[in-house]
């Protein structure tokens, strides 16, 4: 009842391609992703990037819906504190996400599945590192079943 039925769980680890949803701030992390691309840095292809105007635009609903609809991991990336395009957005985001990540962890979501980081437009390397790191950790954890909507077909 509580978790997806057993058959769905026995996906071969080899076959498992984690789906990561990354909410990237338009002014920094998204540009960082761009730079990572043009610099031909390796970062995994199964990361879906969603551009947001600021890290504080990320509503917790977005994260929950991502997990419900098939994400194995979620990344929220914004400007370094102090560098926000809107001056203060990421300071608010920092507080909100501190509480939200802790709350999700309390509900039982492994903390590796929800990653928040600050990535500037110049930090293409960091972008690639963070994404690879998340992917690796999520891969180790296996497919996410928690919060998943059983009716959603990936």
């Amino acid at each position: 009842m509580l978790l997806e039925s057993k058959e769905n769980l026995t996906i071969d680890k080899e076959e498992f391609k984690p789906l990561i949803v990354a909410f990237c701030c338009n002014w920094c992390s998204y540009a960082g992703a761009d730079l990572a691309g043009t610099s031909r840095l390796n970062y995994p292809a199964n990361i879906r990037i969603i551009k947001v105007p600021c890290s504080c635009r990320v509503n917790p609903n977005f994260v929950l819906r991502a997990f419900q609809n098939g994400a194995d991991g979620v990344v929220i990336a914004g400007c370094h504190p102090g560098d926000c395009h809107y001056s203060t957005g990421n300071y608010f985001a920092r507080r909100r996400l501190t509480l939200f990540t802790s709350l999700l962890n309390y509900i039982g979501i492994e903390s590796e599945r929800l990653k928040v980081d600050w990535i500037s437009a110049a930090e293409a390397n960091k972008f690639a590192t963070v994404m690879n790191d998340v992917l690796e950790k999520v891969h180790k954890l296996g497919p996410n079943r928690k919060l998943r909507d059983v009716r959603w077909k990936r």
Partner: protein
Amino acid sequence: MEEMISKMKKIAYEDLSTKKVDRVIGFGKGDFIYEANPIFISNLEEVDLLVWDLFCVNNLSKYLINELKNYQKIGIFLKGCDSLGFNQLVKDNKVDPDNVIVYGVPCEGMIDPNKLSKKNLLKDLRYLRRVDEKLIIVTKQGEKELIAKDYEYDKCLKCKHPNPVVYSELLESNTLRNSILTDDFEEVDRIEDMNSEERYEYWSEQFSKCIRCYACRNICPVCSCDKCIFDNLDIGVSGKAKVDSEDQFFHIVRAYHVAGRCVDCGECSRVCPESIAIDKLNRKIIKDITEIYGEYDAGLNPSKSSVLVNYKLEDFDPFETSKGGK
């Protein structure tokens, strides 16, 4: 108690007759000894319906939102926990404090009829009185002396504000109950000590009991949005299907939406028909805030902005990792 009731009636009568207020919100007696209901009084004759006893548990402050649409000045009886909710409503711009006269009522803890019922004391209950830490009840079988704490609402056992934190008039000056000064968050710790699988299992089981009646939301003094996202079909978040993911979604979003504003009055858990441990979610957030951002003070000071609409440059940053090279 009797003394308090006469004080209540007196002040309500006075203020209504002098037109200081044109509406009084208080408690009236229900069909059973163990039942007190919100009542709304505009006529002087109805003042006599006011009561005060060990079952006046409802937080009346939320009624102000609607009542102030129809009445100019409202007098309202608020306990300690209710007054926190009132302050939060003021802070959220839902209630103009100038239009409200708060009659503060110190509270010595409310009795949970369900706890009496579990001990088979509810049926044929004829009389009940509290004397300090003792609860004296009279049933068909005769008089009995109980320990009051065993029958109080869970939320009252953790009460930090037995006295109203805001009032225009205080009906009783002496504190009737010692407040708990340090919160140990023992019940939150117990869940935190589980591993993530156990935690998920625990919460999924709790959430799956939910029948989506939204009583927790509607009773909550800080859930005061004009239109809740769960009532707004257009924005596509209000899945009505009874599946685990939707239950989880509702409860996580609800808890997070009151983060930093929850006054910990415990009404949500009290009214839940399926006894879901809703307050353990709220209290987790309160615990985090206390640990990270300092003392939690939602509802104490209506002019101070709440944790999540505020920031400091030097806030704790759990996300900072080493900077990557260019």
